[in-house]
Structures are given as C-alpha cells and as structure tokens.
C-alpha cells in the first residue's frame, strides 16, 4: 500500500464506510460545480455602485490603505508623481508590464523613472494594476501572470495600485466569478487588505513587517460600474 492508500483507507475506516458511491460522488461533484454561494453579508451585497465605492474606500482607509481618487485615467501619472513627492520618495517606479498601465500618459511626467518587469530587491516603489477590489473589506485582488509579477506586490516598501471604479465589486465571491471567467487559474491570487503589519511584539501594530509599509490606491472614478463594465 502506498502512503496515499494508507491515508484514504484510514479516512474511510474512521468514517465507517468504503469509497463514496457513484451517486454520492455525483452529488458532491455537482455541489462543487455549482459554486453555490453561502451567506453573503448584507454590508456590501446590498449596495448600489456608488455606495459600494464609498464602502471600499472607507474599509481600505480603515486598514491604513491610502486612497486618491482621480476622475480620469490620464490623471494617474500626475497622482503618482504627487504621492511620491508628498511621501518624500524617489521618483522611481518598478511597474508591472501591463498594457493598460503602459497606455497611461507617462510622457507628461518625464521626471518619473519607470522600469518595467518583476521586482528586484532595490525597488522602493512599485505600481501594479489589479483584477478587482472588494468593497466588503477594502481588499485588493491581484493575480500573477506574465504582465503582473507577484514580487511587485511584496518586495518594495511602497506599493501603488491602480483601481478603476468598475473593478470595485461587493464581495470575495464576485472576485471568484471574475477569476473563473478568465479561464485557468493563475499561480497566485493575492487578496491584499492594507499594508504589511505585525503585532508580534507586545501586540503593538507595526506597519511594514516584511511587505510594503505603504499601500496607496489610485482610484479612477470614471463613473463606470460593474453593471456596465465587467458583466
């Protein structure tokens, strides 16, 4: 017997039965395939898009994410420059090689030095897109891919994330749906809720334990919502 057989046999022995019958297996397969949602907290599910956006911002700010709202994608480079200057950070970025980010008018900010690719240990600031933002808890949902390396989310001290208002969904389950709609899962999906923190010394919360100590969201509030965007 292999170790695998050992464990599975022990499970069945403990449960007092043999392998599940075909009928039960079909039931369980169906349960998995339907992606049935469990109870969804009313907090986010019941909100109109504008209120959902507000909830996202409130929840994000409650966990020390900073949020800047711009009305047009063209304003993103300016906001990046403003934020870096305000935080006294160098005007250098490691940016996800993402066409949507590339399309932004960076030429208008010639002083920003931008490097595209995965993160290297020297990077102080990263800029990434996201898959979605979850209003329920002010959470960003990012995924790995050839245009979105995961290291950008963790190595730099400051992480800037561009979110379009149409990407703000109510719940994690909405995020799962978006993920499934893309086909095969990526290697990594990161739910990020505020900057890195630890309470391991005297339960005092310190930001920037190993990941970024600053998480800045640039929210492009272009009036688009889930209803007219993603679905």
């Amino acid at each position, binding site marked *: 017997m292999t*170790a*695998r057989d*050992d*464990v*599975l046999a*022990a*499970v069945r*022995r*403990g*449960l007092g039965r043999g*392998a*599940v019958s075909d009928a*039960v297996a079909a039931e*369980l397969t169906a349960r*998995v395939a339907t*992606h*049935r949602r*469990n*109870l969804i*907290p*009313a907090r986010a599910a019941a909100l109109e898009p504008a209120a959902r956006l507000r909830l996202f911002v409130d929840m994000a700010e*409650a*966990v020390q994410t900073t949020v800047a709202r711009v009305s047009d994608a063209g304003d993103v480079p300016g906001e990046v420059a403003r934020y870096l200057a305000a935080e006294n950070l160098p005007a250098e970025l490691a940016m996800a090689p993402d066409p949507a980010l590339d399309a932004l008018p960076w030429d208008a900010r010639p002083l920003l030095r931008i490097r595209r690719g*995965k993160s290297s*240990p020297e990077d102080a600031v990263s800029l990434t897109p996201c898959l979605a933002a979850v209003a329920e808890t002010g*959470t960003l949902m990012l995924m*790995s*891919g*050839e245009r979105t*390396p*995961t*290291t950008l989310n*963790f*190595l730099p001290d400051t992480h800037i994330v561009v979110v379009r208002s149409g990407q703000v969904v109510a719940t*994690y*389950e909405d995020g*799962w749906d978006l*993920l499934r709609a893309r086909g095969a*899962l*990526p*290697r*990594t*999906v*990161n*739910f990020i*809720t505020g*900057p*890195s*923190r*630890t*309470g*391991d*010394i*005297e339960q005092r919360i*310190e930001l*920037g*334990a*190993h*990941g*970024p100590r600053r998480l800045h969201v640039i929210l492009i509030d272009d009036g688009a919502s889930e209803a007219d965007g993603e679905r």
Partner: protein
Amino acid sequence: MEATSHTFAGNARAGLANPVLRRALDMAGAGFPARRAEAIARLPEFDALRDEGKAIKDHTIGHLDFYLELYERQVTAAGGVVHWAPDAAAARAAVLGICRSVGAKTVTKGKSMVAEEIALNEHLEANGITPVETDLGEYIIQLRHEPPSHIIAPAIHLMKEQVEATFRAAHTALDPARPLAEAPLLCGEARAVLRPQFLTADVGITGANFLVAETGSSIIVTNEGNGDLTQTLPKVHIVITSIEKVVPTLEDAATLLRLLARSATGQEFSSYTTMSTGPRRPGDLDGPEQYHVVLVDNGRTALLGGEFQDMLRCLRCAACLNHCPVYTAVGGHAYGWVYPGPMGAVLTPALIGLDEAGDLPNASSFCGRCESVCPVRIPLPKMMRHWRERQFALRKAPAAYRYGLGLWAWVAQRPALYHALVEAKARLLGRLGRRRGRFRTMPLAGEWTRVRDMPAPEGRSFHALWAERGRARR
C-alpha cells in the same frame, strides 16, 4: 520537540510566577477579546456565518476521502505534486527529500503549526539544511530556541526587552550603540536581517489555512507578507499541511475566511490572503518552479467517527486561547507541546497520548468561554470531559481522588445517610467557624485554604431545617 505536558502543573506554577510572562499575558488577555468583539459587532451575520462554517467543515469531513482525491487531482492538473504523509516521520522525509532533490542549503519558512507538530526544523538541521523562520514571532523564538506559546502569536510570552536582548545576542553584526528598545526598531531590524534570507533561500515552506478541492489551491492568511516572500522567491514552494484543511469550493473558503481573521485578531480581513495553485506558469516573470504539497495525517484520521471528530473543524484561529482564563493565566508553554489552550487540551492528548498530556483536559474550570467564541462551534469543554472519562475508565486519576469521589457518589445515592452526614458537617463546621465566619485552614481542604478562605457554613443543613419546619407546621 520534547513534550513536557506531563509536568503541566509545575509548568503552570512557573508561568504564574514569571513576571515577564504576567505582563505579556495581561496585555494579550485584554487586547484580543476586545478587538474580536468589535469586529463581530460590525458584522451582524457573524453567528449565522458560524453555523455555515460549521456545516461546511462537517460536510467536508464527512466526505474527506472524496475531497482529498479531488484536491489531489486538481493540484496535479495545475502542475503541482501531492505527497501523502501518514505520520510525522513520513512528512519530515517528504520535505527533506524535496529539499535534497534541489540541493537546498537554506529554506525560509512561513508560520506553520503542522511544521511545529512534526518537528520539521530539527529534522532539517540534523540533515544539514538551515531553516529560517520568517514570521517575526517565529523568528524571535527560533533565535531563543523556544517553542511557540500561541498558535497565531508565537512570541506572545515575551516583552520587547527580551526581543531586544535576543537580537543583540544573535545579530553579531549589530552595532551595540544602535538603539533598539522600541517595537518599530525591532521590526526594522528583523526585516533587514531576513530580507537577504528571502532572496537567497533555495526552498520556501509555508503552511496552509485552507486547501480548496475545486481548484487544487492552498490558501495562506498572514499579516506580515513573510509567507508571500517565502513562497514567491525561492525556486521551490513546499506547502506543509494536514488533511482536515480541505474545503470543497472557493465559496466555502470565502465563508470560512470571513470567520477566521475576525476570530483570530479582530481584523476584518488579514493583510494578505494568498491563494496558490501549482508552480509558476509559462511566461510568468516570478514564482516558484516547483509546487509541492505535503499532506499530513499524523493522528487526524484516528479522530474520525469518534467523540473527537468535531475537533477536525478547527481553523486554528486561537480565539479559544485568547478567551481562556487558564491559558491567559499560565501561558502557552505550560501546555508543554505545540498546541496550547483549549484546542490544545483536546488535540494534544489525541496526537501525543493521554499519558503525556492527561493534565491538559483537566486543567479547565469548564467555564465554556472557548466554545462560546469558537467560529466553528467546537464543543471544547465537552471533548475535554470525554478525555476525563477515558482517564477515569483507565484509572489514571490519583487513587485517593478516585476513592474519595467513589465514596461521595455512593453516599449521594443514599439520601437518608447523605442528609444525616451533611447535617452533621454543617453543625460541626458552623460551630467551629461561627466566630470568624470563615476558615483559614481546614483539614482535607488544604489546597482550598492554601490560597483562599473557606466560608463557614451557617450551621444547619437546608434539608434539616426544612424538615423541622414541616414538623412545626403540622
């Protein structure tokens, strides 16, 4: 690790007498429950979510073989490898084998209680591989060669002064003149020391909070981001986890995630909830080239179908520790093994035996606060009582205690005798104690009166007085 659960009583006394531990635990005793209460007050559906969480876990455990096989198929489909480990030795061997296959010298580790359970670090060290704990609390206790004292806050027994001394002793390059007395400075020091370790490690080992059968994903929940660096930077990612962590779908995981952080730290959601499925994809710019899952049984299947099966629902949130008056009195090290507090009092005897851990399920006043805060409603006191029943059946309790209890129970089944004895005792003690109203010492009650007075009885038993009234009325 060498278990010291059999000396619980002595460990507990040492904990109670340790002033550093007192200060640290007093801080924890107040902080965690208050934050949990605030988080729950903000989510009206919390109790309903607990019912669903319990149902999800029960459903999964009832069909554990099916979901484990589905999970394995999906991991494999995503390019990962599942290693089944019936016991701790098999789990250690699996991890070591993977490390050796890539010639690993250094491994970074995210926090994993299963790794503690199978004593992975000792095994790697003995085989020439250096494990580096990267969770701040785990890193501190690794430097101090201590086991964790809490399942989510492993260094909760320490104050910042101890952490500073530990860093100064271990970080030999550290300038003695550099100030390090405050928590932010200590965090910065750990971050600076660990960063190169993340970048150079050959293998990254994390645990898993959940395994998703539908997708073959493992999910970790952290606040520091150490787990993400651990599993993203090295060329091999090993997930060391146990079979009961599997859930059917992403939706089920979402429900349990809503319970976990709120119960654990009182956060709405932890900073990082990370789902990993297989190794890096073609074209990915980073991420590990290999993804392995070591799936550990190590005594869990033995709980199936019995009075301890409900324990397999445990999410390892630590709410039961944080709300336990015994845990917050004695600290986690008193429990003498990996899992402390109420969940440890139930799980530890199952994993290392009642002979070693028999004290743990007894060291409870059955106040029930653990069960009242458990996100998946595990009846912890009831299961502690079941351990006591097994001990009683095996005659493990001291003979004097067993005979005393037996005699009392015999008398309690003979009302006339019982009432006569109680009346005699009430009269005697009432007379002896009348002047002071209490006893500072009392024969046969030495352990009571050692630490508190024994209030004196009023002098007559209720039943005697009631009987007299009845006669007077007639």
